[in-house]
């Protein structure tokens, strides 16, 4: 039965990969990658039981905690075009001239 669950998860992962490859927009890809991440968390948890070693759960736990960092970086990337402290466009170009 763990096997059935694992196979269902693998099939779902294929579907997420299809969406990841097809896109069409960048956000579709982020969504698919994110969804793939959740499925990996579940697959690792199920695999721990399948192989009789549930101490693998630490890895699933790690993904559950950290997988949203990438998404937040994407949001910041698109909102501000920078992962640091973006400077407003005009100010940035002015600054560029001043430094030359």
């Amino acid at each position, binding site marked *: 039965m763990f096997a059935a669950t694992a196979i269902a*998860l693998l099939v779902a992962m294929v579907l997420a990969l299809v969406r990841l490859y097809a896109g069409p927009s960048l*956000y579709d890809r982020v969504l698919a990658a*994110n969804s793939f991440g959740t499925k990996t*968390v579940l697959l690792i948890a199920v695999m721990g039981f399948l192989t009789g070693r549930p*101490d693998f759960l630490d890895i699933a736990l790690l993904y*559950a905690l950290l997988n949203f960092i990438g*998404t*937040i970086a994407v949001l910041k990337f698109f*909102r501000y075009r920078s992962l640091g402290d973006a400077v407003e466009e005009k100010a940035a170009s002015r600054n560029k001239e001043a430094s030359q």
Partner: protein
Amino acid sequence: MIALLVEAASWTFLLLGAFLVLVGALGLVRMPDFYTRLHPAGITDSLGADFILTGLVLQAGFSLVTVKLFLIGAFLFFTSPTSTHAIANAALVAGLKPRHAVVPPRPPEKATQDEEAR
């Protein structure tokens, strides 16, 4: 007897969860545009994940494994809607228009309070 019941409940949860994850993934492929795809992705994240984790909890019995499975569920409960919201927001801010819905204009009279509210 009780062991059998727990076993049966566990398999039911696992299979239901697996089914929901599949449905969510199918929706991710079938839906026509980005915003509508967010919803089936939510099936996987919410009930699909919870059911599978519940099924595993029933298998594990009462131990630290249970606690860790519960923690995975709890952290997903916080992070998955946050990432979904973050992606949706990024798409909206970057100007991706929903294909089948209209973005309603913000009610204008309150737009200026925005800065003061912070």
